[in-house]
């Protein structure tokens, strides 16, 4: 939801009450916020009600574009969507990845193809809320409904550009655990299991990982490697015989990380607006290093937010 900030509304109100007064170009109350630059100041308010209303409208639109309201989950989804290039074949899992694919399709990647491991390929996102990838709306009008082996065979044959997976734990080399926390034979927590994630991690050209940024989730070393990243780092992945390229990015609710350096260890690449370096490092379970140029994650544009609200009308996957 976008809102016109109180400052712009105040200005409009004061203009209505005292049309002949001169008001300085910048609205009365400057919002204290790192993410909001002030609009260009005008020395004198234009004369005439039409020009004044146009000016108020422009100011309000300026604030609307810059001061978008969005949640961190929404930024995560949109950051993931940006990782999909037009025309690519993408392996899509449930929850955030399927929403990210939908956003990408509606914005910058109109020709991306979505592949679902149960045996579905789609050109367009499903028309309707999905709770599983097998739901009716995901099958109606699909590009292809077939078996698991046929769809995952595309992956295994090296024909899939990117896959998205989440998980319970990820370590500094992008290995993901969705199987066991603790000992295999006597686990502290038995997680649901792998699904198709190991296949995606092994065989996709690149992998995008989406996990919430907490110390117990971004760990030094996972208890169990369900889905392989760079294993022990360096060229361990190549030595193990894995054909796919491995993790390209880790997107969290605080930052984005990328593998960097000869060890292929995850380094900080960008920090989300409103979050700090100390916070990001403090919530990471390993000694997180930064890439040479750490930027701020670009906030969502209006088009991206519109696409997101269209895909997930009920906000089920964004909460």
């Amino acid at each position: 939801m976008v809102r016109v900030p109180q400052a712009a509304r105040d200005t409009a109100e004061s203009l209505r009450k005292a049309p002949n007064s001169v008001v300085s170009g910048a609205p009365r109350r400057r919002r204290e916020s790192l993410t909001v630059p002030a609009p260009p100041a005008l020395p004198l308010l234009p004369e005439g009600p039409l020009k004044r209303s146009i000016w108020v409208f422009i100011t309000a639109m300026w604030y609307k574009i810059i001061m978008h309201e969005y949640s961190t989950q929404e930024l995560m989804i949109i950051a993931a969507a940006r990782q999909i290039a037009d025309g690519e074949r993408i392996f899509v899992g449930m929850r955030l990845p399927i929403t990210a694919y939908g956003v990408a399709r509606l914005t910058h990647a109109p020709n991306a193809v979505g592949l679902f491991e149960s045996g579905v390929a789609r050109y367009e996102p499903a028309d309707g809320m999905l709770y599983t990838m097998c739901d009716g709306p995901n099958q109606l009008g699909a590009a292809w409904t077939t078996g698991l082996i046929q769809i995952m065979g595309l992956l295994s044959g090296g024909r899939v550009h990117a896959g998205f997976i989440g998980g319970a734990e990820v370590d500094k080399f992008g290995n993901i655990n969705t199987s066991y926390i603790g000992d295999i034979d006597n686990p502290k927590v038995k997680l649901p299991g792998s699904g198709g994630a190991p296949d995606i991690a092994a065989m996709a050209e690149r992998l995008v990982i989406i996990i919430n940024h907490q110390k117990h989730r971004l760990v030094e070393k996972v208890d169990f490697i369900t889905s392989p990243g760079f294993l022990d780092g360096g060229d361990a992945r190549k030595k193990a015989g894995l054909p796919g390229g491995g993790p390209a990015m880790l997107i969290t609710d605080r930052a984005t990380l990328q593998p960097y350096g000869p060890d292929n260890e995850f380094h900080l690449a960008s920090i989300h607006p409103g979050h700090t370096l100390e916070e990001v490092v403090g919530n990471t379970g390993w000694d997180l290093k930064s890439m040479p140029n750490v930027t701020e994650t670009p906030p969502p544009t209006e088009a991206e937010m519109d696409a997101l609200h269209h895909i997930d009308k009920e906000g089920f996957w964004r909460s």
Partner: protein
Amino acid sequence: MLGAALENAVPFAATHELIRQGRRGLNMIAPISDISTDMLIGAGCVTEVTGAWVGNVSGGMGHNYRRAAEHGTPHPIKINDYSNFAIGMAFFAGAYGLPYVPLKSILGSDILKSNKNIKLDTDPFSGEPVALVPALKPDVAFLVVQRADRFGNSHIWGSTGLTQEASIAANKIIVLADEIVEPEVIASDPSRVLIPGFGVDAVCHVPAACHPAPLIGKWQRDNQFFHDYHKETREPADFDRWCDEWVRDLPDHTAYRAKLGGQLEELRILGDAPSAPANYATE
């Protein structure tokens, strides 16, 4: 084998019947069968689980599965981990008489450590590492289809997961048909036959056998049911209560459908979105 098509067409009617019959010592095989495996574990039917993912797809974790794996409640289970493609290819091998299949997609995963059946080896042609996954041949496979004739010739449409492979690999095939039709209906479209009758051991007419899972063109998913299951089975006593109410105290699937009543009727798909006809004429 119960749940070949992943979250689609899960044969819950068979799940319930296994629980009602008090079956024990089962090895439950399915890539992902949503809460079906969790129910069978909670009811004490299962001692071994062979699959890629066990839980409640829209709800999160399966409480019974976790209790069995972490605390041995109601009794310990042996877990055979697979990835989706690995279990799929294991069925492929079982269906087509291959002793094992060589895969690269499971390399690098600790599934190679937790599943002692899968062996790491070297490709004799390239010298590259390769994982050998032995064939899987279930004793029984339960398969839900949209329609079948009384001989078991079945039409199925939508994503099929491992239905085709399971229907050939398994020793006994039991088809649960949402609708029984005349043989001419099935014979009119041989390309849509996934399971020919000559492979089928029994065909049962069970409308909405898949509830609460969806069946393309027939039944929508009962999302509220999955959500309620997640809430109502947190403790063993809760699950027992749930299982009594929805499975053990009901004599059969007809009673289950009657108990659901309007809730089930609302999920029946009434719309029309037929496929383009295919002409098989010979002249």
